[in-house]
């Protein structure tokens, strides 16, 4: 302490001002560097949107809003007939099924890991989840193509088709013939791929629940189920939804694995065992050998995915805000 005060005394008023201004310069620089980095995100995003719009413009002019509800995709016709309905349908259906599977399973794993799992099992399961997130998507695609596809086509799909045969609506959804490459296979692969997002984020937010709250609940005689349902999940709802949105974002945009196993057919079929396509799979497949209107149409598809993702995420934010408001009351 004494040494420090000596230095301050020696420095005198003039030096002190200088030192302070040097600090200030550092602060200002730091402020601007961080600010510019933050602004650059907006610039990059704007640039991407702008170039997408420029690239998509010829197709927008040619097809107008009919692009949204045209089901045909005939790039070799003269002039090309292009419509986004098939890929949009595929994107939404695969993501929906993927979330339908991944949310309960992901939350289940997270709850087990934080509330019920014996200590010695936590690390292996936790690491397995992280590994799952680290596998490149092409590997998922190949695994889906060589292992999951044949299993589903030979075992699971015939079983489902037989069970729901003749049932209204469900019969059409689970209609045959079974196929190695289908919307359902792609959705299942997507579910596995997004599982780690939901799980690891849920685990992290579950850990933020103050132990006092849980102990109090246990103290008044709650079961584990009741503690999870009435204490842990309400407390961490915002975090969970954040994780789910991140997963949904990935599911909507995932390309490589889906291209491998979705069958790449632009026709819409009522059956989820029929081949389909997604926006990103269509772009990845056809972009390299496309030109003119065809390429512009593909870029327009890209723009649509952008807008679609934006709306989904915005919708989620809205839902979150309403939830928070409700909780606030």
């Amino acid at each position, binding site marked *: 302490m004494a040494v420090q005060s000596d230095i301050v005394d020696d420095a005198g008023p003039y030096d002190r001002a200088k030192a302070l201004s040097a600090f200030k310069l550092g602060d200002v620089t730091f402020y601007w560097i961080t600010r510019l980095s933050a602004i650059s995100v907006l610039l990059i995003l704007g640039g991407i949107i702008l170039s997408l719009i420029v690239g998509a413009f010829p197709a927008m002019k040619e097809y107008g809003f009919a692009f949204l509800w045209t089901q*045909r*995709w*005939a*790039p*070799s*016709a*003269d002039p090309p*007939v292009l419509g986004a309905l098939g890929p949009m349908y595929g994107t939404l259906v695969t993501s929906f099924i993927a979330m339908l599977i991944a949310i309960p399973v992901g939350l289940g794993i997270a709850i087990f890991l934080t509330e019920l799992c014996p200590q010695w099992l936590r690390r292996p399961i936790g690491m397995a989840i992280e590994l799952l997130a680290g596998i490149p998507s092409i590997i998922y695609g190949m695994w889906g*193509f*060589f292992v999951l*596809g*044949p299993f589903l086509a030979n075992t699971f799909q015939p079983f489902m088709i037989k069970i729901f045969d003749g049932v209204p609506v469900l019969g059409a959804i689970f209609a045959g*013939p079974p*196929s*190695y*490459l289908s919307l359902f296979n792609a959705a299942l692969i997507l579910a596995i791929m997004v599982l780690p997002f939901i799980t690891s984020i849920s685990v992290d937010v579950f850990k933020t629940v103050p132990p006092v709250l849980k102990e109090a609940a246990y103290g008044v005689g709650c079961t584990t189920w009741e503690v999870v349902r009435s204490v842990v999940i309400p407390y961490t709802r915002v975090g969970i939804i954040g994780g789910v949105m991140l997963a949904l974002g990935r599911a909507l945009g995932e390309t490589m694995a889906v*291209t*491998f196993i979705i*069958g*790449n*057919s*632009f026709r819409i079929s009522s059956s989820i065992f029929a*081949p389909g*396509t997604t926006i990103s*799979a269509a772009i990845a*497949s*056809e*972009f*390299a*050998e*496309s*030109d003119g209107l*065809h*390429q512009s149409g593909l870029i327009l598809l890209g723009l649509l995915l952008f807008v679609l993702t934006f709306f989904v995420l915005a919708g989620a934010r809205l839902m979150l805000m309403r939830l928070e408001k409700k909780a606030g009351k």
Partner: protein
Amino acid sequence: MNFIKTIVAAGLVAATTTAAFAADITGAGATFPFPIYSKWADAYKKETGNGLNYQSIGSGGGIKQIQAKTVTFGASDAPLKAEQLEKDGLAQWPMVMGAIVPVVNLEGVKAGELVFDGETLANIYLGKITKWDDAAIKKLNPNVKLPSDAITVVRRSDGSGTTFNFTNYLSKASADWKSKVGEGTAVEWPVGVGAKGNEGVSGNISQTKNSIGYVEYAYAKQNKLTYTGLVNKAGKPVQPTVEAFQAAASNADWAKAPGYYVILTDQPGDKSWPITAATFILMHKDATDKAASQEAIKFFRWAFKNGGKAAEELDYIPMPDSVVQLIEKTWAAEIKS
């Protein structure tokens, strides 16, 4: 270090010498010939010290890049029409050939046992023929035992020259196909599942029972897939062999086609394989960098002369000598030095 040295050396050469020195020849385009172009480039570099930088970005990209003059040559699986060549001031010629074969996965059926004609193949891909024991298939194959199972149709999902040539053949063989689907690198497929690349289709066929697809001959051969024969324009059933592919090329009327605009499908001749395809090179007739142009021509001349064996090893088919002679004349007449 080497890389930096090369750059420095190239810079020095460009700055100090008036006679342009051999820089790498640059080209871009079709993915189909990439393996043979890179093998040739390798051998050429060993012999002459001159390298070739070929980027396989797809035929469409190749055409765009040569039009934009960012490369010395472009490569495309589908040839440009004469008017288009004229407009862009481009010369075009076929470089090497491949063939497309139908492949099937049918229990008890061996390679070469089945035979199709274009009409039947088109009807399968149109979804009109859905069972293996359809009368049309039976009629062509009276001695083969065919199951009464549904046909799983497999095709390419990515835009590709293979698809262009296959659909071009179906358009020639079936009026119905021509009016309903037509030809192109990506078309509106009425039925079937799409797999990515030749490897995707091969993988799918070998896994799926009762399936049919089409792949490059090289893939069928290397993956030991059950290929089929085809009835050609002369009405003769032929098997996919190098002789049959070369017959198709020799029987094509190259001399009368401006810009070598010949699509090798459905060529006349008793021995011709009906879905043979050439891949093309595009160059500016009056290039800004004439030295680079000459370098590239030197490389192509060398490839025609010395590259045949390498091509065959990779299951490509070299251009017949008669065609190479024509191409030499084209170079002399069209490419300005």
